[in-house]
């Protein structure tokens, strides 16, 4: 998922289809909204101002792909399911659901779900919305999301071979919605929390076309409704009085401010104009920890930072060189001295925070840095590099203070330990993407954030056909392990295969994992209901409230 240009961003991948072991059969939870603890004194003014990184590209859920968009749309539109503060899937518009075989899913919608103009939210709305996602005329950049679920005919419709009406969705009655998949996907319900599968109001979209998201036209079914939108300045929303759970909404107004510059964002927080920030500048972290410890919120994040090697090109076609370069990175320096917000060193691709799996530390991760350095020197010498024939390569990164800092630091480690001569090469985002696509690099910075909370969102990244990572690796052995993972029938077997995949990566070293991200924010202590444990950072404004000082 596109977080911003600095971090990374990925998307749901093929392995999404494979299941997690649990399937949802006729599940039901109690609704969750702003549950204000007893004895909390609420402030008179219930207005929340959130920093939101980049300006949103669109508020049409079928035209977006980034994180800032998801944050805003999460408040404006409600899908079949939501997440609670800890990241568990809970009912949204669908009150309950059932599936006999993980291929056919029936969702029972709540009777009282309404659009912000008073119309009821019906199964037809979902049929229309799902068809709209795959309709070539919509040109949704995330249309492949439905293709990945293996929804019947989705792929053919996107390719223009079939009509959108053939999509495997059906309104059994006004409040019963059914989906058909071609392959079993126990994971499917969890996927229905995604931005791409939010419903849109048919009459409004058809009447206004591309302009339906303008505040004067907007009709949504979320807890809030769009009130004002000035590009590059602010998005304002007020409670949707027709929302089924509106009684529990505490806030009277939510404002999203697009502020790209972290220092500018911090300044606005410190001057009291923002209730919480989108991120925190690395250089300022220590000072903030000292001066404003009560405002710092740090939580683990489902992301890994790594360098990838172009294994098709010299010098990284030699596994010894890849290993030597990876070993010589002192990850503890990176996480403790250079970052120091609680990031953890990474020796594997899948971060430890992932649900239901704890990656094993590979052999080189258990060594001390001195041992690693010694091994690295030996490997490099074996590969034929020495003082008279030093290894030279260039390291590509996209322009950003943090990437620059790490690249300089790590290049300096390589130089000191191995005598390697590294040329740093920065490019602005789009040029960087093009260079990587063309394979015009030797080593490059990269990062990955999980789309869903399961290891395959990471391991499938290095699969040979994956255009972000695996394309520069392309190992038949690894692809075989991925395939077996998809076909695995038991959770136990699948977990073993994830271990095997990680072991294969440690053996071939197509990437050098560096650290595991954290999500750091400044959150004003008067904000209640901030979901500090949601690993996917799904924050619902409807769960938040302002505490009286």
């Amino acid at each position, binding site marked *: 998922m596109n977080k911003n240009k600095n971090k990374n961003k990925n998307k749901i991948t093929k392995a999404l289809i494979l299941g997690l072991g649990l399937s949802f059969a006729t599940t039901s939870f109690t609704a969750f909204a702003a549950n204000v603890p007893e004895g909390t004194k609420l402030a008179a003014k219930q207005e929340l101002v959130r920093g939101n990184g980049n300006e949103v*590209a669109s508020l049409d859920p079928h035209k977006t792909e980034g994180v800032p968009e998801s944050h805003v749309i999460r408040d404006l539109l409600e899908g079949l399911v939501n997440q609670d503060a800890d990241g568990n899937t809970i009912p949204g518009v669908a009150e309950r659901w059932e599936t006999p075989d993980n291929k056919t899913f029936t969702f029972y919608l709540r009777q009282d779900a309404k659009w912000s103009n008073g119309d009821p939210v019906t199964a037809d709305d979902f049929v229309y919305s799902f068809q709209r996602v795959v309709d070539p005329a919509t040109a949704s*950049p995330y249309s492949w999301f439905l293709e990945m679920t293996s929804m019947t005919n989705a792929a053919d419709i996107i390719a223009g071979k079939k009509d959108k009406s053939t999509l495997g969705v059906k309104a059994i009655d006004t409040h019963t919605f059914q989906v058909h998949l071609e392959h079993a996907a126990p994971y499917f319900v969890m996927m229905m929390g995604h931005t791409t599968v939010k419903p849109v109001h048919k009459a409004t979209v058809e009447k206004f076309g591309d302009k339906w998201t303008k505040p004067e036209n907007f009709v949504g079914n979320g807890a809030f409704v769009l009130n004002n939108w000035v590009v*590059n300045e602010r998005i304002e929303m007020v409670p949707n009085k027709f929302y089924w759970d509106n009684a529990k909404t505490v806030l009277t107004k939510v404002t999203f401010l697009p*502020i790209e510059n972290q220092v500018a964002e911090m300044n606005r927080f410190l001057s009291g104009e923002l209730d919480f920030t989108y991120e925190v500048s690395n250089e300022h972290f220590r000072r903030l920890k000292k001066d404003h410890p009560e405002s710092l919120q740090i939580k683990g994040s489902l992301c890994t930072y790594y360098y990838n090697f172009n294994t098709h090109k010299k010098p990284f076609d030699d596994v010894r060189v890849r290993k030597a370069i990876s070993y010589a990175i002192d990850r503890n320096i990176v996480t403790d001295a250079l970052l120091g917000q609680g990031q953890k060193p990474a020796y594997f691709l899948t971060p430890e925070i992932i649900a239901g799996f704890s990656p094993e530390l590979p052999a080189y991760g258990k060594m001390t840095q001195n041992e690693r350095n010694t091994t690295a020197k030996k490997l490099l010498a074996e590969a034929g590099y020495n003082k008279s024939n030093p290894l030279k390569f260039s390291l590509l990164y996209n322009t950003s203070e943090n990437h620059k800092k790490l690249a300089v630091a790590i290049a300096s480690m390589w130089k000191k330990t191995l005598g390697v001569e590294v040329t740093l090469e920065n490019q602005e*985002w*789009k*040029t960087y993407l093009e260079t990587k696509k063309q394979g015009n690099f030797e080593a490059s910075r990269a990062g990955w954030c999980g789309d869903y909370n399961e290891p395959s969102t990471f391991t499938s990244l290095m699969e040979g056909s994956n255009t972000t990572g695996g394309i520069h690796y392309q190992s038949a052995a690894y692809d075989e392990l991925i395939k077996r993972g998809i076909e695995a029938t038991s959770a136990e077997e699948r977990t073993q295969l994830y271990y095997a995949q990680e072991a294969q990566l440690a053996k071939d070293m197509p990437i050098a994992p560096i650290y595991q991200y954290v999500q750091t924010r400044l959150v004003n202590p008067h904000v209640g209901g901030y979901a500090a444990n949601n690993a996917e950072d799904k924050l619902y404004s409807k769960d938040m409230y302002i505490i009286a000082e």
Partner: protein
Amino acid sequence: MFKFILKRVIEAIPTLLILITISFFLMRFAPGSPFSSERTLPPQVMENINAKYGLDKPVMEQYTTYLSNVLQGDLGPSFKYKDFTVNELVATALPVSAKIGAVAFVFAVFFGVGIGTIAALRQNTWLDYSVMSTAMIGIVMPSFVLAPVLIYLFSITLGWFPAGGWLDGSAKYMVLPVLGMSMMYVATFARITRGSMIETLNSNFIRTARAKGLSFSYIVLHHALKPAMLPVVSYMGPAFVGIITGSVVIETIFGLPGIGKLFVNAAFNRDYSLVMGITILIGLLFILFNAIVDILLAYVDPKIRF
């Protein structure tokens, strides 16, 4: 006068045409596309998107389509901000930049010319040195340094002005951005005015006037100021366009929805139509203000004819 304007309007057409052509193809030569992202989209999806925005056609055809749309005043849909057309985006951003820009410009000219004149009249005295040294700080201190300092002082410490935002564009949101933006121009105008004024004061006709016993202040106001303004006026053209189209640094730091930020983001996002739209706008502004400057030049020195 009418003939002058007519000529300029006629000349503007080929000028803009060349500008559009060069910019259009320059942009297409740059690597990356508006829809490229970390994970390459499946070919069918990419095709759908390209078809929707007309990028599937040959470049020459795209170019001619674009030209004919522009002639009808349609700058097309934005490739990045999919809910808006370029016309809409420019229409919201331009007034913000223009408002801040106009105030900053007047501020810069007024103080710049004032400081420069005083420094010139007291050439090589402590007043000259101190005033001009202060002005130099405006030149040396880039806005990305100055703006955070202003915010730290006036927003975080004193709490007088907001640290950013625009809202309704009321005065309190404008003070800091205007200061941050105009300091460099104040300094530049001051330097140019001072140099030009000294030169003018040394010229023969001023000496004659002084010999005639006219009071010094009368001479400065009635004889020297106008000719000394010549280079100042010449510089006003580029300065005005520079100020009015906004400063990306100031707009980013203060969170203002202006043209400068819109333009730079559009370029980074390869939002072709938005980049083109703003390029045309900037071109138009240059043509317009250079024409105004030419009229002003003729006013400052009546002998100048075009």
